[in-house]
């Protein structure tokens, strides 16, 4: 009988306890596999709510249906993070259903990634803003959203910390300005491949006192004036100015003087900067800069690996943009 007891102990106690520990390291897919292994594992894992705070539907088909099914499950009622990055078959209709049927489960949602979900329009965003009130992280890379969505986000998420608008080409100045004015706690703003904003809008970024990460790749209208205003964001750690072709030494020096905690900087493709700006950067940020991309900066004469290491002793990454 002892053998049976041992086996029983193994199945019902040892393995579930161990799996509970291990499961914190497992991706969603394996978590669900574990659920199906045995009734005791099932029970043990479900009793651990911290395991079920994220729903990962990246690149899946039928994502709309799957999302509704998932959010309807009791174990996801405290979901904090949903990723639908490049998921397919999800549109405004699904979001409407979510709003109508799963209101309670979405109350705690803090992070939503809709990258690449091109069937979602402003209507879908309206559904989201009306049922999720606590979003901190919002990502809509390459989506078909317009200024209206930005307006909605600005209205509802004043505590927003991270916003990714990469390639949302329909975005306008007024929409972004609304965000800048009202989402003053933003720590991360990604405007990669958005070339239509005016310099006036870029100047307004200066109000984001908490900004740490700013991606302005492709900001063709960004001038030295705009960049000097951005330099007021003292806490900036990461700044991408790839292809910001109007920028010269003046702007970069302003950044050097203002953002002394800068760790990551790309000046890729900017022909108007010279060695002067590197000297300034070295003077103010040499202790912190670990990534610096000056490839294609033909105005800078001394930018070999050794030259750069002399100016920035902690430099480890020399390339950002390819």
């Amino acid at each position, binding site marked *: 009988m002892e053998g049976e007891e041992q086996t029983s102990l193994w199945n019902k106690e040892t393995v579930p306890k161990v799996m509970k520990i*291990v499961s914190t390291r497992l991706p969603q*897919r394996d978590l669900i*596999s574990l659920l199906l292994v045995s009734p005791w594992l*099932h029970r043990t894992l479900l009793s651990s709510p911290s395991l079920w705070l994220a729903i990962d539907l990246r690149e899946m*088909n039928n994502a709309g*249906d799957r999302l509704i099914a998932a959010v309807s499950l009791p174990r996801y009622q405290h979901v904090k993070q949903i990723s639908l990055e490049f998921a397919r078959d999800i549109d405004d209709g699904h979001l409407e259903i979510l709003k109508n049927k799963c209101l309670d489960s979405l109350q705690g949602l803090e992070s939503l990634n809709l990258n690449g979900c091109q069937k979602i329009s402003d209507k879908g965003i309206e559904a989201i803003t009306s049922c999720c009130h606590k979003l901190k992280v919002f990502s809509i890379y390459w989506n078909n959203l317009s200024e209206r969505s930005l307006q909605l986000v600005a209205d509802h998420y004043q505590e927003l910390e991270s916003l990714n608008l990469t390639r949302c080409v329909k975005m306008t100045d007024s929409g972004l300005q609304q965000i800048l004015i009202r989402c003053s706690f933003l720590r991360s703003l990604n405007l990669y491949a958005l070339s239509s904003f005016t310099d006036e809008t870029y100047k307004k970024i200066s109000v984001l006192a908490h900004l740490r990460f700013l991606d302005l790749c492709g900001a063709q209208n960004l001038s030295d004036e705009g960049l000097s205003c951005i330099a007021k964001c003292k806490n900036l750690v990461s700044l991408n100015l790839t*292809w910001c072709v109007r920028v010269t030494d003046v702007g970069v020096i302003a950044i050097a003087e203002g953002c002394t905690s800068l760790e990551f900087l790309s000046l890729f493709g900017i022909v108007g900067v010279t060695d002067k700006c590197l000297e300034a950067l070295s003077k103010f940020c040499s202790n912190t800069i670990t990534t610096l991309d000056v490839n*294609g900066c033909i105005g800078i004469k001394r930018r070999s690996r050794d030259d750069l290491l002399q100016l920035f002793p902690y430099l480890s990454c020399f390339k950002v943009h390819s």
Partner: protein
Amino acid sequence: MSEVDMAVIKPEMMKSYIWLQTADGSIQQVEQEVAMFCPMICHEVIQKGMGSSKNYAISLPQRVNPAMLSLILDYCRFHQVPGRSNKERKSFDEKFIRMDTKRLCELTSAADSLQLKPLVDLTSRALARIIEGKTPEEIREIFHLPDDLTEEEKLEPLKNTTDDPRIRLLNRLYAKKRKELKEREKLKNVEVEEERVDDRSVDDLLSFINGDNGDSKGIKTSKSKKKNRRRKDQQKSTSANEANKNHSEESNGLNSLCHSSEVGQKIRPSIGATSNLQDVEDDIFANKNEFDDGDIDDEIDPALKEKLDREVEDFARRLNSDWPERMQEILSLGQERKAVHFPLNGNGSVRRYSRAEMISK
């Protein structure tokens, strides 16, 4: 070395020992500095004054049998020595966890009861690597768990009084599953994936949330990693419709080959890479491995550099005349440009984005 030997060789050393008792009743004494490496034992000694003699031996939790205790003490004996380098410790750890899965499991459990977090982290990471990508059946086999779920499939359709689309969906899934099982039974004698009648059956079926159908085999080769990346690139540069054509394997939720495994594989370390003790969580949120490879060799050789400078100059001129279209073109087709070559991974904008996302998280 026994205590007597130690006393003979170094009589002047007053070595302290802690007395420990395992659940089977056996008592042993362990060098103090080794035993105190375990927080639970430390607590018993300091807060309760236990362990100073045989009569006051510290009772260890039931999960710590003599074999496990011996392993744990080996671990403690090595790591409590302050002078060791990180490399030494890592090397020791790698060798230490080479044991069968059952032992690894018991060890995790025992270490957890003694609150020895570094060892729990080490063993649970190893177990996570073992579990990754496995089907429930495979997991049962590995951990010697009985298949005690009900054999018969009892998938009753739910009553759909409100015409809830979710319930319609569920019933459709049940019907499909029933059909699928019938077919499978006809074809083979193999055991079928069972579900329970209780609320679990809902969950199990809704594991289609995961794109799981039980037959998916976990580990894909690096070929599929590349395929996945290329797919992603294509998605970004062409319309969503075109991208859909590439996904030929999708049929319906339940029957589709586990699509999510591809997503996972892209970012999971390969099983068996025992040298990489990196936390699995890190891999989930950042394509760090890909990016880091790039960083190791980020120096462009001079000839290429010159070419790059010329290209940029050229671009700068063209850009000023023809910006908006150029911009879109550059950024969406960046990785496919033949004009500018880079010695590294050509998925510039993909990786770039991943890095950006990683930072912003």
